[in-house]
């Protein structure tokens, strides 16, 4: 914990906003603006690799769904649409609190930073909790591949000539994609909590504007991925039945 002592040398600064304090400049940079710009751009580039990462999966999903639309629609029927919608709202709310946290950092308001970041982490955890409930239900209904997967009898009746492998493929992709998203979210929650703790300890030389801005970009990305995953995975049959 020694390393986390506040960098602001004046103890009077602790607990107050230190408006005039400039962030420490890395030796490789000429000015703070260049440093900020580099960090933001680095995160955007990292997010572009993440887009390609999820893009490969969404590509695989698109191909299989295109080849077997019936099986995918039938399989997605077992998703709990209201819970998914609730989770979407939760994540969107977390993006709002994250954006308010970034704003608070720009205003050097440490109290507000900590408040908004903790709220963001709570929303993220709430999302994971709901996801856990959904996964448990899937487990009980034998819908998790490699853990006693069975095609539900009523679906076999509805579509006797179905490609059972393709039906399971929906669930393989569902768990892979939502699982990967959940891993990103767990990393995101950890990051947000670390930032909240560091802000609380006044560890940053400025108010951590750059660091919290970068964290915010990552958080919004997690949110946006879910905005794509929710319709792709939950709302297929809503479209097919209309």
């Amino acid at each position: 914990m020694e390393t986390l002592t506040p960098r602001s040398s004046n103890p009077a600064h602790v607990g107050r906003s230190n408006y005039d304090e400039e962030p420490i400049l890395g030796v490789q940079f000429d000015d703070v603006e260049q440093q900020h710009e580099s960090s933001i751009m680095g995160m955007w580039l990292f997010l572009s690799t993440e887009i390609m990462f999820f893009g490969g999966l969404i590509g695989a999903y698109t191909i299989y769904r295109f080849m077997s639309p019936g099986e995918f629609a039938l399989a997605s029927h077992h998703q709990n649409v209201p819970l998914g919608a609730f989770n979407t709202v939760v994540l969107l709310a977390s993006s709002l609190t994250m954006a308010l946290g970034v704003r608070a950092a720009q205003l050097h308001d440490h109290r507000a930073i900590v408040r908004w970041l903790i709220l963001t982490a709570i929303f993220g955890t709430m999302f994971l909790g709901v996801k856990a409930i959904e996964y448990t239900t899937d487990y009980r209904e034998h819908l998790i591949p490699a853990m006693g997967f069975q095609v539900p009898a009523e679906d076999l009746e509805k579509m006797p000539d179905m490609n059972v492998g393709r039906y399971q493929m929906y669930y393989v992709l569902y768990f892979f994609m939502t699982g990967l998203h959940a891993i990103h979210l767990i990393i995101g929650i950890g990051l947000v909590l670390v930032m909240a703790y560091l802000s609380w300890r006044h560890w940053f030389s400025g108010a951590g504007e750059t660091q919290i801005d970068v964290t915010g970009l990552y958080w919004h990305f997690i949110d946006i991925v879910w905005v794509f995953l929710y319709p792709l995975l939950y709302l297929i049959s809503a479209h097919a039945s209309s």
Partner: protein
Amino acid sequence: MSTIAVEPRQAIQPPDDHPEEVSYLAAGHTVRSWLLTVDHKRIALLYLVSITVMFFIGGFAAVIMRLELATPQGDVLWSADGYNRAFTLHGIVMIFFFLVPSIPATLGNFLIPMMIGAKDLAFPRINLLSWYLYIMAGALALVVLIFGGVDTGWTFYTPFSTMFSNTMVVPAAMAGFIAGFSSILTGLNFIVTVHTMRAPGLTWFRLPLFVWSMYATSLVVILGTPVLAIALALISVERLFHVGIFDPALGGDPVLFQHLFWFYSHPAVYIMILPSMAVMSEIIPCFARRPIFGYRMIAYSSIAIAAIGFIVWGHHMFVSSQSMYAGMVFSMLSFLVAIPSAIKAFNWTLTMYKGSVRLETPMLYALGFIGLFTIGGLTGLMLSTMSTDMHFHDTYFVVAHFHYIMVGGAVMGYLGGIHFWWPKMSGRMYNELLGKLSALTVFIGFNLTFFPQFVLGNLGMPRRYYEYVSEFQFLNVMSSAGASILAVGYILPLFYMLLSLRNPPNAPANPWRATGLEWQTASPPPTHNFHKTPVVTRGPYEYSPEGAEAIDGNLNTAFE
């Protein structure tokens, strides 16, 4: 040749000499000062050492393969399976742990900040992290490949890799996954650095072409590598949980894997060759004493190669159930890549026209590169033509083709670059005579090894077989003999470069009288590269001597 005595304009500037500031090599001598360094130059040297080790391990596997193939019977290795493991080791180590990081992680790391007049990369600690990821991945890969063995080839094709192979596919895929993160971090660092850290006055079109080419490479790295990562992750999931992602019996499609895999791995070819092209664009103007011909076209062609490289992957699937129409489109798109590549080859050649060419070691490697890369590129056109590909597919013709690009192109460029910048990196001059000898040995050994393989492929010898019919023996013996010459050519530089380190630093700041910013500081450079941030007022290749300028002044207008 009458212009030989005329000094180039920019090289006249004396390098700033501040003896009180120590070089980056002298900045610390403890192991800790190396393993925890965030200096881009030291990290470049860490990479240089580790990829050299990898290169010789991968090369050793190639030696075993060539020994095995010297006779038609399987006799050196115990079984066909042993041969499969040897070529998988060779492929994975050479591609993921040598070729992909080779020039970017060593020369790129060392030179990009210096060429743009910066003190370091934008993210020095991420740079160090990428080296540690590389070491983790490399150690894992070596343990798996040497003590376990993987028999899938470096391509991990399904369904063999997921359903039939009994070897350690998942750990090997993990190693590829981690190595991918290492190169993503390097690529990301380069792009940000080039955007935000350029010295005052250094506009985009005053950047050295090395930087342009590295920038294009980095774009390919950050957009392609994640797709490979996801493909490897899916293979691991399928193997670990026995769910069908690529298994037809469980609703999967093995060709999907090939699409995902080649979406990265074809652009990866450009990850390997673009950095060598970067080196060429620095060496050739310097040793021809001419401004580079068609600066902007070379810069744009790097970006064009990166962009077109992403839409040609289907030419790997002409015979694996891809529709004929898709094949035709991919075939046409593949032909397109030849255009920017040819622009570069022609422009380098024209740069030498009426120049005073000095045949020193880096230039010999560069000349070798142009010839061998051209052969490799043109045979690529034969393979991207669907009808001829039916004949050549999975034969030694393909092996010869990509070795002409990867070894004749990428490795020649790498060695040329190491020789060119060795005085800057180490502060020492190597033995020029031995250098020339190595360039010549590599060139002869390379052609003797791989040219017969074009003939073998055309005669129908398939790849990846460890036994063959006896009429192919003559050409195979030739190839194995060439490989032994090539091995000498590769060991030679290792020997004389290490030997040069025994001398006290003897390299001047600018031994080649080159114009790049990196030559304007001491050899080896001080920790923060420049004593004060340089201000750039002109383009990077103002080589042309005044005397020559008066004679063909209009040629110089090609360069701004």
